[in-house]
Protein backbone atom coordinates (compact mmCIF):
# COMPACT_ATOMS: atom_id res chain seq x y z
CA UNK A 1 0.00 0.00 0.00
CA UNK A 2 1.04 3.54 -0.67
CA UNK A 3 1.79 5.70 2.36
CA UNK A 4 -0.92 8.35 2.78
CA UNK A 5 -0.14 11.49 0.86
CA UNK A 6 -0.38 14.98 2.31
CA UNK A 7 -3.79 15.60 0.80
CA UNK A 8 -5.20 12.47 2.33
CA UNK A 9 -4.05 13.55 5.77
CA UNK A 10 -5.86 16.89 5.59
CA UNK A 11 -8.97 16.48 7.75
CA UNK A 12 -10.81 19.49 6.32
CA UNK A 13 -10.58 18.17 2.78
CA UNK A 14 -11.58 14.69 3.86
CA UNK A 15 -14.60 15.85 5.85
CA UNK A 16 -15.81 18.25 3.15
CA UNK A 17 -15.34 15.66 0.42
CA UNK A 18 -17.18 13.05 2.46
CA UNK A 19 -20.09 15.47 2.92
CA UNK A 20 -20.11 16.78 -0.65
CA UNK A 21 -19.65 13.67 -2.76
CA UNK A 22 -23.05 12.06 -1.99
CA UNK A 23 -24.79 15.37 -2.63
CA UNK A 24 -22.98 15.80 -5.95
CA UNK A 25 -23.89 12.27 -7.03
CA UNK A 26 -27.51 12.83 -6.04
CA UNK A 27 -27.53 16.13 -7.91
CA UNK A 28 -26.12 14.33 -10.94
CA UNK A 29 -29.00 11.86 -10.83
CA UNK A 30 -31.47 14.75 -10.43
CA UNK A 31 -30.05 16.51 -13.50
CA UNK A 32 -30.17 13.20 -15.37
CA UNK A 33 -33.81 12.42 -14.75
CA UNK A 34 -35.12 15.96 -14.54
CA UNK A 35 -33.63 16.99 -17.88
CA UNK A 36 -37.00 17.08 -19.65
CA UNK A 37 -38.38 19.57 -17.16
CA UNK A 38 -35.46 21.74 -16.14
CA UNK A 39 -32.07 22.62 -17.52
CA UNK A 40 -29.67 19.76 -17.92
CA UNK A 41 -29.79 16.31 -19.39
CA UNK A 42 -27.63 13.29 -19.91
CA UNK A 43 -24.43 15.07 -20.85
CA UNK A 44 -24.38 17.46 -17.91
CA UNK A 45 -25.51 14.72 -15.54
CA UNK A 46 -22.77 12.39 -16.72
CA UNK A 47 -20.14 15.06 -16.22
CA UNK A 48 -21.44 15.95 -12.74
CA UNK A 49 -21.61 12.32 -11.70
CA UNK A 50 -18.07 11.65 -12.93
CA UNK A 51 -16.84 14.86 -11.27
CA UNK A 52 -18.31 13.72 -7.95
CA UNK A 53 -16.48 10.41 -8.20
CA UNK A 54 -13.26 12.16 -9.23
CA UNK A 55 -13.51 14.43 -6.15
CA UNK A 56 -13.72 11.23 -4.13
CA UNK A 57 -10.62 9.95 -5.93
CA UNK A 58 -8.74 13.21 -5.34
CA UNK A 59 -9.23 13.00 -1.58
CA UNK A 60 -9.19 9.28 -0.93
CA UNK A 61 -6.93 8.12 -3.74
CA UNK A 62 -7.63 6.80 -7.20
CA UNK A 63 -6.94 3.23 -6.12
CA UNK A 64 -9.80 3.47 -3.61
CA UNK A 65 -12.13 4.60 -6.39
CA UNK A 66 -10.81 1.87 -8.64
CA UNK A 67 -12.08 -0.69 -6.16
CA UNK A 68 -15.58 0.77 -6.53
CA UNK A 69 -15.45 1.52 -10.25
CA UNK A 70 -12.85 -0.69 -11.94
CA UNK A 71 -11.24 0.49 -15.17
CA UNK A 72 -12.80 -2.40 -17.08
CA UNK A 73 -16.24 -1.37 -15.86
CA UNK A 74 -15.81 2.17 -17.22
CA UNK A 75 -14.80 0.76 -20.61
CA UNK A 76 -17.84 -1.50 -20.72
CA UNK A 77 -20.17 1.30 -19.62
CA UNK A 78 -18.79 3.59 -22.33
CA UNK A 79 -19.92 1.13 -24.95
CA UNK A 80 -23.11 0.25 -23.06
CA UNK A 81 -24.28 3.89 -23.08
CA UNK A 82 -23.84 4.21 -26.83
CA UNK A 83 -25.51 0.85 -27.40
CA UNK A 84 -28.44 1.81 -25.15
CA UNK A 85 -29.01 4.92 -27.25
CA UNK A 86 -28.78 2.95 -30.48
CA UNK A 87 -31.00 0.20 -29.11
CA UNK A 88 -33.82 2.70 -28.55
CA UNK A 89 -33.60 3.58 -32.25
CA UNK A 90 -33.64 -0.06 -33.30
CA UNK A 91 -36.55 -0.88 -31.00
CA UNK A 92 -38.47 2.01 -32.52
CA UNK A 93 -37.82 0.48 -35.95
CA UNK A 94 -39.12 -2.92 -34.82
CA UNK A 95 -42.26 -1.25 -33.51
CA UNK A 96 -42.97 0.22 -36.92
CA UNK A 97 -41.44 3.67 -36.72
CA UNK A 98 -38.27 5.17 -38.11
CA UNK A 99 -34.88 4.91 -36.39
CA UNK A 100 -35.07 7.00 -33.19
CA UNK A 101 -38.73 7.91 -33.74
CA UNK A 102 -39.75 7.63 -30.11
CA UNK A 103 -43.46 8.01 -30.85
CA UNK A 104 -43.37 4.47 -32.20
CA UNK A 105 -42.35 3.17 -28.76
CA UNK A 106 -45.91 3.67 -27.62
CA UNK A 107 -48.24 2.65 -30.46
CA UNK A 108 -51.40 2.78 -28.35
CA UNK A 109 -51.57 6.50 -27.59
CA UNK A 110 -50.78 9.58 -29.62
CA UNK A 111 -47.08 9.27 -28.87
CA UNK A 112 -46.47 11.56 -25.91
CA UNK A 113 -45.68 8.66 -23.64
CA UNK A 114 -43.34 7.19 -26.24
CA UNK A 115 -41.52 10.49 -26.56
CA UNK A 116 -41.12 10.70 -22.77
CA UNK A 117 -39.86 7.14 -22.58
CA UNK A 118 -37.51 7.51 -25.53
CA UNK A 119 -36.00 10.74 -24.24
CA UNK A 120 -35.50 9.36 -20.71
CA UNK A 121 -33.78 6.22 -22.03
CA UNK A 122 -31.53 7.92 -24.58
CA UNK A 123 -30.56 10.57 -22.00
CA UNK A 124 -29.65 7.71 -19.68
CA UNK A 125 -27.50 6.26 -22.46
CA UNK A 126 -25.82 9.65 -22.95
CA UNK A 127 -25.24 10.02 -19.21
CA UNK A 128 -23.72 6.55 -18.82
CA UNK A 129 -21.47 6.99 -21.85
CA UNK A 130 -20.27 10.46 -20.79
CA UNK A 131 -19.68 9.57 -17.14
CA UNK A 132 -17.81 6.39 -18.08
CA UNK A 133 -15.72 8.18 -20.70
CA UNK A 134 -14.66 10.90 -18.26
CA UNK A 135 -13.81 8.33 -15.63
CA UNK A 136 -11.79 6.37 -18.19
CA UNK A 137 -9.92 9.49 -19.29
CA UNK A 138 -9.20 10.32 -15.65
CA UNK A 139 -7.90 6.80 -15.05
CA UNK A 140 -5.74 7.12 -18.15
CA UNK A 141 -4.13 10.25 -16.72
CA UNK A 142 -3.56 8.98 -13.19
CA UNK A 143 -2.44 5.59 -14.45
CA UNK A 144 0.62 6.99 -16.19
CA UNK A 145 4.03 6.52 -14.64
CA UNK A 146 6.64 9.21 -14.97
CA UNK A 147 10.23 9.58 -13.90
CA UNK A 148 9.05 11.63 -10.95
CA UNK A 149 7.06 8.68 -9.59
CA UNK A 150 10.28 6.79 -9.00
CA UNK A 151 12.01 9.75 -7.39
CA UNK A 152 8.92 11.04 -5.53
CA UNK A 153 6.09 13.02 -7.04
CA UNK A 154 5.48 16.72 -6.51
CA UNK A 155 3.43 16.74 -3.26
CA UNK A 156 1.23 19.62 -4.41
CA UNK A 157 0.13 17.55 -7.37
CA UNK A 158 -0.13 14.30 -5.49
CA UNK A 159 -3.90 14.66 -5.43
CA UNK A 160 -4.06 14.62 -9.19
CA UNK A 161 -1.66 11.74 -9.35
CA UNK A 162 -3.68 9.91 -6.69
CA UNK A 163 -3.21 6.27 -7.32
CA UNK A 164 -0.56 5.40 -9.83
CA UNK A 165 2.12 4.31 -7.38
CA UNK A 166 0.86 1.17 -5.83
Amino acid sequence: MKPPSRVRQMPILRVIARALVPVILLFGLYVQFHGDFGPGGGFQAGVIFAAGLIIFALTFGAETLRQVVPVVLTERLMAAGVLLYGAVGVVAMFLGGEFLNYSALDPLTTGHYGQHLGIIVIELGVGIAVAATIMRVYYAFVGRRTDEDRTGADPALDAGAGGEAS
Partner: protein
Amino acid sequence: MPPVELLLMLLLLATVVVVARLKDLFAAAMLTGIASLLAAGLFVLMDAVDVAFTEAAVGAGVSTVLFLGALSLTSRREKQQERTRILPILIVVATGAALIYGTWDMPAYGDPDAVIHHHLAPELIAETEEKIHIPNIVTAILASFRGYDTFGEVVVIFTAGVGVALLLGGLGLRRRAGHGEEES
Protein backbone atom coordinates in the same frame (compact mmCIF):
# COMPACT_ATOMS: atom_id res chain seq x y z
CA MET B 1 -23.98 46.38 -21.45
CA PRO B 2 -25.57 45.79 -18.01
CA PRO B 3 -23.16 46.28 -15.09
CA VAL B 4 -23.18 42.66 -13.93
CA GLU B 5 -22.29 41.35 -17.37
CA LEU B 6 -19.65 44.05 -17.74
CA LEU B 7 -18.11 43.06 -14.41
CA LEU B 8 -18.07 39.37 -15.37
CA MET B 9 -16.59 40.21 -18.76
CA LEU B 10 -13.82 42.32 -17.17
CA LEU B 11 -13.06 39.58 -14.62
CA LEU B 12 -12.93 37.05 -17.45
CA LEU B 13 -10.55 39.27 -19.39
CA ALA B 14 -8.32 39.75 -16.33
CA THR B 15 -8.31 36.00 -15.66
CA VAL B 16 -7.27 34.98 -19.16
CA VAL B 17 -4.55 37.63 -19.29
CA VAL B 18 -3.16 36.33 -15.99
CA VAL B 19 -3.37 32.73 -17.26
CA ALA B 20 -1.37 33.69 -20.34
CA ARG B 21 1.30 35.46 -18.27
CA LEU B 22 1.65 32.99 -15.37
CA LYS B 23 4.64 30.70 -15.33
CA ASP B 24 3.22 28.55 -12.53
CA LEU B 25 1.16 26.01 -14.43
CA PHE B 26 -0.65 24.76 -11.32
CA ALA B 27 -2.06 28.24 -10.68
CA ALA B 28 -2.78 28.65 -14.40
CA ALA B 29 -4.84 25.44 -14.41
CA MET B 30 -6.86 26.70 -11.43
CA LEU B 31 -7.44 30.05 -13.12
CA THR B 32 -8.72 28.40 -16.30
CA GLY B 33 -11.34 26.79 -14.08
CA ILE B 34 -12.28 30.21 -12.73
CA ALA B 35 -12.44 31.55 -16.30
CA SER B 36 -14.89 28.78 -17.20
CA LEU B 37 -17.01 29.57 -14.16
CA LEU B 38 -17.14 33.25 -15.16
CA ALA B 39 -18.11 32.25 -18.70
CA ALA B 40 -20.83 30.04 -17.23
CA GLY B 41 -22.11 33.03 -15.27
CA LEU B 42 -22.28 35.05 -18.48
CA PHE B 43 -24.24 32.24 -20.17
CA VAL B 44 -26.73 32.22 -17.30
CA LEU B 45 -27.24 35.96 -17.72
CA MET B 46 -27.88 35.34 -21.43
CA ASP B 47 -30.56 32.77 -20.47
CA ALA B 48 -28.57 29.88 -21.90
CA VAL B 49 -28.79 27.76 -18.74
CA ASP B 50 -28.15 24.46 -20.47
CA VAL B 51 -24.94 25.77 -22.00
CA ALA B 52 -23.94 27.36 -18.68
CA PHE B 53 -24.50 24.05 -16.97
CA THR B 54 -22.19 22.29 -19.41
CA GLU B 55 -19.56 25.01 -19.19
CA ALA B 56 -19.53 24.92 -15.40
CA ALA B 57 -19.41 21.13 -15.19
CA VAL B 58 -16.92 20.50 -17.99
CA GLY B 59 -14.84 23.67 -18.04
CA ALA B 60 -14.62 24.48 -14.36
CA GLY B 61 -14.87 20.93 -13.07
CA VAL B 62 -13.57 18.06 -15.11
CA SER B 63 -11.09 19.78 -17.40
CA THR B 64 -9.38 21.44 -14.42
CA VAL B 65 -8.90 18.00 -12.90
CA LEU B 66 -7.57 16.66 -16.19
CA PHE B 67 -5.18 19.62 -16.41
CA LEU B 68 -3.92 18.71 -12.93
CA GLY B 69 -3.61 15.09 -13.98
CA ALA B 70 -1.59 16.13 -17.02
CA LEU B 71 0.53 18.47 -14.87
CA SER B 72 1.39 15.66 -12.50
CA LEU B 73 3.03 13.94 -15.49
CA THR B 74 5.13 16.94 -16.44
CA SER B 75 6.77 19.86 -14.70
CA ARG B 76 4.89 22.34 -12.59
CA ARG B 77 6.61 25.36 -14.10
CA GLU B 78 6.60 26.60 -17.65
CA LYS B 79 9.97 26.65 -19.37
CA GLN B 80 11.46 30.10 -19.70
CA GLN B 81 11.18 31.60 -23.15
CA GLU B 82 14.48 33.11 -24.21
CA ARG B 83 12.87 35.97 -26.08
CA THR B 84 9.47 37.35 -26.88
CA ARG B 85 8.30 36.06 -30.21
CA ILE B 86 6.68 38.65 -32.44
CA LEU B 87 5.09 36.42 -35.07
CA PRO B 88 2.76 34.46 -32.73
CA ILE B 89 1.58 37.72 -31.14
CA LEU B 90 0.87 39.17 -34.57
CA ILE B 91 -1.09 36.08 -35.62
CA VAL B 92 -3.15 36.12 -32.41
CA VAL B 93 -3.89 39.84 -32.66
CA ALA B 94 -4.82 39.54 -36.34
CA THR B 95 -7.14 36.56 -35.65
CA GLY B 96 -8.76 38.37 -32.75
CA ALA B 97 -9.25 41.52 -34.84
CA ALA B 98 -10.81 39.45 -37.64
CA LEU B 99 -13.19 37.79 -35.19
CA ILE B 100 -14.23 41.13 -33.68
CA TYR B 101 -14.68 42.54 -37.18
CA GLY B 102 -16.91 39.55 -37.92
CA THR B 103 -19.18 40.32 -34.98
CA TRP B 104 -20.04 43.74 -36.45
CA ASP B 105 -22.25 42.05 -39.02
CA MET B 106 -24.07 40.03 -36.39
CA PRO B 107 -27.48 41.21 -35.20
CA ALA B 108 -27.54 42.85 -31.79
CA TYR B 109 -27.97 40.50 -28.82
CA GLY B 110 -31.67 39.88 -28.23
CA ASP B 111 -32.71 41.53 -31.49
CA PRO B 112 -36.18 40.06 -32.26
CA ASP B 113 -35.67 40.64 -36.00
CA ALA B 114 -32.56 38.47 -36.15
CA VAL B 115 -32.70 35.71 -38.76
CA ILE B 116 -32.11 32.98 -36.20
CA HIS B 117 -35.36 33.86 -34.45
CA HIS B 118 -37.40 33.46 -37.64
CA HIS B 119 -35.96 30.33 -39.18
CA LEU B 120 -37.05 27.04 -37.51
CA ALA B 121 -37.09 28.45 -33.96
CA PRO B 122 -40.78 29.54 -33.97
CA GLU B 123 -41.86 26.15 -35.34
CA LEU B 124 -39.82 24.27 -32.76
CA ILE B 125 -41.19 26.42 -29.94
CA ALA B 126 -44.74 25.92 -31.18
CA GLU B 127 -44.43 22.19 -31.88
CA THR B 128 -42.51 21.00 -28.83
CA GLU B 129 -45.50 21.20 -26.52
CA GLU B 130 -47.75 19.49 -29.04
CA LYS B 131 -45.45 16.78 -30.37
CA ILE B 132 -43.01 15.99 -27.57
CA HIS B 133 -45.02 17.21 -24.59
CA ILE B 134 -42.09 18.14 -22.36
CA PRO B 135 -41.42 21.65 -21.08
CA ASN B 136 -37.66 21.89 -21.74
CA ILE B 137 -37.45 22.79 -25.42
CA VAL B 138 -33.66 22.41 -25.46
CA THR B 139 -33.92 18.79 -24.32
CA ALA B 140 -36.73 18.14 -26.80
CA ILE B 141 -34.64 19.48 -29.67
CA LEU B 142 -31.45 17.67 -28.64
CA ALA B 143 -33.01 14.35 -27.74
CA SER B 144 -35.92 14.06 -30.14
CA PHE B 145 -35.96 16.49 -33.05
CA ARG B 146 -32.21 16.06 -33.50
CA GLY B 147 -31.85 12.57 -32.06
CA TYR B 148 -29.50 11.59 -34.90
CA ASP B 149 -27.12 14.45 -34.11
CA THR B 150 -27.06 13.62 -30.42
CA PHE B 151 -26.46 9.95 -31.20
CA GLY B 152 -23.53 11.04 -33.35
CA GLU B 153 -22.22 13.19 -30.51
CA VAL B 154 -22.35 10.29 -28.06
CA VAL B 155 -20.43 8.17 -30.56
CA VAL B 156 -17.87 11.00 -30.82
CA ILE B 157 -17.48 11.06 -27.02
CA PHE B 158 -17.13 7.29 -26.98
CA THR B 159 -14.53 7.45 -29.76
CA ALA B 160 -12.62 10.16 -27.89
CA GLY B 161 -12.62 8.02 -24.76
CA VAL B 162 -11.37 5.00 -26.70
CA GLY B 163 -8.69 7.17 -28.30
CA VAL B 164 -7.44 8.47 -24.95
CA ALA B 165 -7.53 4.99 -23.47
CA LEU B 166 -5.46 3.60 -26.33
CA LEU B 167 -2.98 6.49 -26.42
CA LEU B 168 -2.43 7.09 -22.71
CA GLY B 169 -3.25 3.84 -21.00
CA GLY B 170 -4.53 0.88 -22.92
CA LEU B 171 -3.79 -2.64 -21.92
CA GLY B 172 -0.78 -1.56 -19.90
CA LEU B 173 -2.94 0.32 -17.45
CA ARG B 174 -5.24 -2.61 -17.03
CA ARG B 175 -2.33 -4.91 -16.35
CA ARG B 176 -0.89 -2.47 -13.81
CA ALA B 177 -4.29 -2.01 -12.21
CA GLY B 178 -4.56 -5.77 -11.96
CA HIS B 179 -1.20 -5.95 -10.19
CA GLY B 180 -2.25 -3.14 -7.83
CA GLU B 181 -5.33 -5.03 -6.78
CA GLU B 182 -3.35 -8.17 -6.12
CA GLU B 183 -0.87 -6.32 -3.93
CA SER B 184 -3.40 -4.45 -1.83
